[in-house]
């Protein structure tokens, strides 16, 4: 090569957007191990979300409420359709179902403590109801899951509500797997399986197969519990209009709708990132189904999947939800992924904020583990205090926004209070693009 060619200007090395460094790393990992990546948490990809919506606030045509003094109610009643004893909550923020097994006993206790202090409900998960959780939860929703691990009629009758889980946002159509390293003696006993083996959670219920069967299943649950407690149906964000319609038809008091950002204890990464819809795209469809049936506000709607702030809560309610549920955010409030454990996250090959190998049971924060030494790091009383603080802040934030929009109850927020920052969010949420009175699809236009 001639010298003049060596010194000629060269193109800057360009990383491929298609074959990005993270994609290439995953290809190398797959090539080395022969197994797909399993992890916890929800979708990490960027999708249209609540950040793409803004509240308009009051103006000449809208009269605001005094921010610190005038009443802005946050209460919500769930289960008014059929249950003799609907659930009364002080705030429209509930704690989503997370299993004992995926979480430690003290972590479940902390969720109950925090929810109770804040005047809201918490929810069991796969694996059944623990006495600590029942004892520390003033209002406890009992999940009725395909695996029926730990399921028994005594606990069913102790519940304040029953949530029939059809699917979840992280993996609509998928089951679960609790790896053997998290199967302690107690977890094994509750699930009627040997210690140390990987425990599969089925993707389908074993004794019903469709909405007509589900209606009869709900009849059975109501008969066993004397028609006292509300029955929720939880679905992942797959086909929210039809799923909501069918859940109402099957007799649900409450529909719980979980978008793809909703967390899981352990699922294939490809499932988490590539199946299901963002919650922003689901809410209006579910509300439309309820309105078409004349059941909006009669059957309550709880939405979840990426709810983080009081602004998110207010936006969900403005779009038509009655309440929200938080899972991942609650774990972060307890101390999950806290930078104070950075040295240990580094040893696990990750970093605070990115740690998602919850299924391995090595959580430095002592929350997603059954290891006694790690669990001992977590104080359930302090965890409950932190969760209560967080719930209070979210509530205050939502009230701040509602008052600014002139609403004396969070439920008075409405789509008209919102605008969208992007075309995608405008289309998904059916909220006018900022500066216009139009959204894609309005009046059938595109």
């Amino acid at each position, binding site marked *: 090569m001639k010298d003049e060619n060596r010194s000629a200007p060269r193109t800057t090395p360009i990383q491929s957007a298609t074959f990005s460094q993270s994609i290439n790393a995953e290809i190398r990992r797959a090539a080395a191990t*022969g*197994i797909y990546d399993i992890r916890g948490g929800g979708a990490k990809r960027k999708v249209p979300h609540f950040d793409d919506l803004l509240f308009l606030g009051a103006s000449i045509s809208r009269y605001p409420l005094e921010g610190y003094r005038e009443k802005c109610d946050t209460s919500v009643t769930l289960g008014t359709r059929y249950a003799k004893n609907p659930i009364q909550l002080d705030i429209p923020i509930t704690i989503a179902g997370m299993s004992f097994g995926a979480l430690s006993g003290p972590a479940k206790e902390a969720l109950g403590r925090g929810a109770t202090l804040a005047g809201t409900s918490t929810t069991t998960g796969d694996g059944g109801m623990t006495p600590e959780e029942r004892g520390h939860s003033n209002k406890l929703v009992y999940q009725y899951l395909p*695996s*029926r691990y730990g*399921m*028994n*009629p005594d606990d*069913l*009758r102790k519940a304040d509500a029953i949530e029939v889980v059809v699917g979840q946002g992280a993996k609509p159509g998928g089951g679960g*797997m609790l*790896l*053997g390293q998290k199967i302690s003696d107690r977890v094994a006993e509750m*699930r*009627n*399986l*040997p210690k140390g*083996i*990987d425990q*599969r959670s*089925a993707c389908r219920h*074993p*004794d*019903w197969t469709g909405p007509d*069967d589900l209606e*009869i*299943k709900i*009849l*059975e649950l109501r*008969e*066993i*519990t*004397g*028609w006292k407690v509300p029955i929720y149906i939880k679905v992942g964000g797959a086909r929210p209009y039809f799923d909501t319609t069918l859940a109402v038809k099957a007799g649900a008091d409450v529909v719980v709708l979980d978008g793809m950002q909703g967390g899981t204890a352990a699922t294939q990464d490809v499932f988490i990132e590539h199946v299901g819809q963002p919650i922003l795209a689901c809410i209006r469809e579910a509300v439309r189904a309820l309105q078409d049936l004349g059941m909006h506000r009669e059957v309550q709607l709880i939405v979840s999947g990426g709810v983080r702030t009081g602004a998110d809560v207010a936006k969900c309610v403005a779009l038509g939800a009655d309440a929200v549920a938080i899972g991942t955010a609650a774990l972060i409030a307890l101390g999950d992924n806290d930078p104070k454990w950075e040295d240990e996250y580094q040893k696990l090959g990750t970093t605070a904020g990115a740690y998602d190998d919850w299924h391995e049971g090595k959580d430095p924060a002592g929350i997603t583990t059954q290891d006694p030494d790690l669990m001992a790091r977590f104080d359930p009383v302090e965890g409950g205090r932190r969760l209560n603080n967080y719930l209070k802040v979210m509530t205050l934030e939502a009230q701040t926004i509602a008052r600014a929009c002139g609403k004396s109850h969070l439920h008075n927020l409405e789509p008209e209070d919102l605008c969208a920052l992007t075309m995608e969010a405008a289309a998904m949420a059916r909220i006018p693009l900022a500066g216009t009175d139009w959204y894609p699809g309005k009046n059938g236009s595109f």
Partner: protein
Amino acid sequence: MQTFDLAADGLRTLNATLHAQAEATNQTVWEVINPKGSHAIAVGLDAPIEVNVKGSTGYYCAGMNKQATVHVHGSAGPGVAENMMSGTVIIEGDASQYAGATGHGGTLVIKGNASSRCGISMKGIDIIVHGNVGHMSAFMAQSGNLVVCGDAGDALGDSIYEARLFVRGSVKSLGADCIEKEMRPEHIAILTDLLERGGCDAKPEEFKRYGSARELYNFKPDNAY
């Protein structure tokens, strides 16, 4: 004996009445007439009472039963004795899908045939079937015993854990990780007791035992189909 006319007084009244029976009730024997295939008959019982249903039932009869004996003098619809905890459920006729699903304890006796998914995800229940069972029976069966005096359909015991399966007749096919196992003296003893409890006129020596090869107990790529 107390007689309850389901057609006249309704399901809610029936179950509420049965739920109100305390541990020491002296109204220990009940008869339910005119069931007419109704769903959720005698569900969630928790007292040592005997309920005789005079006719066939719909879905989930005796669901989540504890302590009680429920005797169906007819056939049973899907999910009979689902998630039973204890007690006894006897079906004089046939049982539809999912009989004894996820049952944690107690004894379910089916004197006719059982349809598909009998004993699915069973967790400690004993199920004795005088006739045949359909496909996918004992799918993901965790513990307990399933006795089949007739034949078993396709994919028996697929993904089975620690449940024991005893079949006298043919097995059309075994599911993933389900294998035939040696019938040792302790199994003969267990089966003898089960056959006696089920009122079966069969000899334990005529049965083969099936259970888990335990190859699926820990996840590995080769197990993912």
